[in-house]
């Protein structure tokens, strides 16, 4: 198959990877409750993550599946589209948010259930990334 006309996938596009990395670094500095975070494509490829060391590639594919399942539930119940998913566990929480209308998302693992400030910062991170990708 010729790949000449196939666009570079976001997770291998240096500009997208750089913008995602910068947005995540800003998030890590601004929100101390965030233990780890990843920007991913809708189909579960990791674009960038903080902290950059260590494992965590499965977080991207799991977040992708979570978002898709949330969409399926919302469709089934005819309650409209979903733009984020929250999972509250005994020793932490996971929030997955869409990045505007782009085929990518942000997933954050937090030490505790997110408060309003945490959620606002996560939302600002997706907005920041959306703006950077538009430039």
């Amino acid at each position, binding site marked *: *198959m010729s*790949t000449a006309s*196939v*666009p570079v*996938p*976001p*997770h*291998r596009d240096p500009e997208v990877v750089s913008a995602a990395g910068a947005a995540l670094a800003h998030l890590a500095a601004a929100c101390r409750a965030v233990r780890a975070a990843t920007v991913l*494509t*809708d*189909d*579960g*490829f990791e674009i960038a993550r903080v902290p950059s060391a260590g494992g965590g*590639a*499965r977080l*991207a*594919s*799991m977040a*992708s*599946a*979570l*978002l*898709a*399942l949330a*969409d*399926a539930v919302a469709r*089934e119940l005819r309650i409209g589209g979903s733009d984020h998913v929250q999972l509250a566990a005994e020793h932490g929480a996971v929030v997955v948010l869409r990045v505007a209308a782009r*085929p990518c998302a942000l997933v954050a693992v937090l030490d505790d259930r997110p408060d309003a400030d945490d959620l606002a910062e996560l939302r600002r991170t997706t907005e920041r990334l959306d703006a950077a990708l538009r430039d």
Partner: protein
Amino acid sequence: MAEYVILFAGPMGAGKTTAIRSLSEIEVVSTEAANSDRTIVDKPTTTVALDYGEIDLDPDKVRLYGIPGQARFDFMWEILRERAMGLIVLVNADAPEPERHVYEQLTAFAELAATGGVVVGVTRYDIERTDIGDRIVATARAVLPDRVTPVFAVDARDREQMRTLLLSLVADIETRRALVESP
């Protein structure tokens, strides 16, 4: 009335979602996302969690689960195979080395293959008339030497062909169950 939980496994682009849509009598629950890397498989969307459908094989009910083809979603394989009683492996004949995908899927689901039913469906078989069928049969025999694994050429879009494949799987499950229960 019996109830069967069946998994559809196979590489991306083999026709798993299409097969479940052909068979299901309810609106299929699907979790498709835009396929961001068209260099791997050139199709617009890909399943990232599961497909779910149902069909009544009077008097039995069959729950149909399609699992994502990419290994990065193998956590979904682990979740769904715990409940499964049978496995349909779909591979497309015009992909490079389809028998390698059969090997990988049957190996990944070896435990289910040992205790439940298994059939292999080869899609797009009419595109190339080669020895692919023989190679797939030989691969299935090598991975599962203690059992006969039926291999069918199928069109995932064709409800009757997929129904024949499914009925073969249900018969395989019933046969193996009868063998286990016989004194």
